[in-house]
């Protein structure tokens, strides 16, 4: 199996005034294409920083992060943005939709930022919104949608450029348990039926027990404490 994400001995050190605070101390994470991986850890474990590395949102202080075989440290900011936009679909705990744009417009956003021209962005956005179960209310703004609906829009947005990876940060954290389950089902469905690599970053141990999980990484103090590989 080919590794789509390869994090090798990554350190991330933040400068807080004159003190150096290491958030990651030699993190190693390898995720293969098509896998369902869970990165788990309590707050303060370096989980968010780890997600920033895996999602190419930030560069490591030391170590190597390879996205689909390419070292992200060797890319300039624009290329990095481009690669992020095309390879990774982000789903955030707080949805992070643009409040002034409608559901459709939020979903077309990654297509707008893509360097190559996307034909019929609106049609494509509608198709994806129907796929995630939001056939109606597509012209509503985030403020007019429920939490579950908003997360569906966010998931639809993450799928806009047909990325290989869906990276979800506490995707059910702001939803009640019933809606959370529905969103989880949707994500699992995308993983199973559409063969997306699914990475969930969470503090909730229940995700590790989900059916179909290929990898679980337990984080503590900025490094992997324990990992489990199914199959």
């Amino acid at each position, binding site marked *: 199996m080919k590794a789509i994400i390869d994090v090798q001995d990554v350190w991330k050190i933040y400068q807080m005034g004159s003190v150096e605070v290491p958030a990651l101390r030699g993190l190693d994470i390898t995720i293969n294409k098509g896998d369902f991986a869970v990165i788990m850890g309590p707050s303060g474990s370096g989980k968010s920083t780890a997600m*920033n590395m895996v*999602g190419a*949102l*930030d560069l490591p202080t030391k170590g190597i992060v390879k996205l689909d075989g390419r070292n992200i440290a060797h890319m300039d*900011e*624009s290329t990095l*943005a*481009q690669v*992020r*936009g*095309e390879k990774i*679909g*982000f789903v*955030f705990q707080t949805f*992070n*939709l*643009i*409040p*002034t*744009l409608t559901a459709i*417009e939020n979903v*077309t*956003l*990654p297509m*707008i*930022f*893509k360097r190559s021209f996307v034909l019929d962005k609106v049609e494509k956005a509608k198709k994806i919104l129907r796929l995630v179960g939001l056939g109606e209310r597509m012209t509503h703004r985030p403020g007019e949608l429920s939490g579950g609906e908003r997360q569906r829009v966010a998931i639809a*947005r*993450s799928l*806009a*450029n047909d990325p290989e990876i869906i990276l979800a940060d506490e995707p059910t954290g702001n939803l009640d348990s019933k809606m959370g389950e529905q969103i989880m089902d949707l994500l699992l469905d995308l993983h199973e039926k559409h063969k997306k690599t699914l990475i969930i970053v969470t503090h909730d141990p229940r995700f590790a027990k989900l059916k179909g999980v290929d990898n679980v990484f337990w984080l503590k103090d900025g490094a992997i404490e324990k990992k489990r590989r199914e199959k």
Partner: protein
Amino acid sequence: MIQDYLRIALRNITHRKLRSWLTAIGIIIGVASVVALISVSQGMQGAIEEQFEQMGTDTITITPTSFTGPGSTAEAPFDDGDVRVIERIPEIDTVLPMMYGTAKFTFHNQDSYSYLMGIPLDKESNKVWDDIGWDILEGRFPEAGKKEVGIGYLAAKEMFDDELRVKNTIMVNDEKFKIVGIAKEVGNSQDDTAIYMDVDVAKDILDQEDYNMIMAKVKPGNDAELVADKVQRKLEKYRDAEDFNALTPSEILEQINDILGIIQLVLVGIAAISLLVGAIGIMNTMYTSVLERTKEIGIMKAIGASNNAIMMIFLAEAGILGIVGGIVGTILGMIMGKGVEIAAGSSGFIPLRVEISWPLILGAISFAFLIGALSGTLPALGAAKLKPVDALRHE
């Protein structure tokens, strides 16, 4: 792509309507005042040019260098000797010495002070008046040597409670005159409120021997400007002084335009200061906007927006504010200009026509856009440079 950025920018602008309008008002005021000032001064220039066109191109005007308009205390500087010098120049056809001053007019026991012009009224001279389009509405021109007056169009209507008519008798500095003609409207208040009589008769009435100005008509086939130079030279030699100017209408026009140009520059310069304030307003709004939307910038960067894309969105926003301010400001400026036109028309001042000129409209709007985009540049650069992680963490 561009239209997508524009749409996102437009959504942000309409999302916070009040602040956007307040920002645009800064530009609106600046653009409106610049447009109004430019269009009014263009209209003024047009009106003045029109006045000079009536004079024709072959009339030389000889005036003292010092200001000798109505109400001036300067001596009337030209005498019959000067007139003879000009008459002897072979390229000159007719010489028209003129004098003017304030006189008391009495009609139906009512006194009024106005502007009296003494002009030559012999056959030759009358041809010149005819050529420059100075015409009688009713009656005829006064005759040379007779105690007759012609009345300016407005003077007839407004000088006394009773309207002056042909065949009325009017007292000028306590001497009896017969009104023989009412002049057609010329278009400037100075000429329209004056009363005209033969220059030799005016000498007695105004009690002065000398002339305030001399007009000279050039014989056909001569270059008026060359002849004007010759008049200047000959008269300078005779008078042994350079205290006068012999100019053709186009030369006078050039001088007036020079002065108008300076006034225009100063006024527009002052108006431009308000544009600068408007630009600072846009910059301020854009900085606030970047600060407020730091998280959005982070989101957009996370889902693939390059620095350029972020920059474009914010530049578009500032540019739209500028262009909207420009459009509304131009319309407002035009309305203000028209208002000045109407006010000037009703006050009997030189009638100026404020025209809607496309170069001015397009210039004003594109300039406003440019100002908007320029003031948005620094905030947009700041937005583009934000790091996605830092921006995402921002609440």
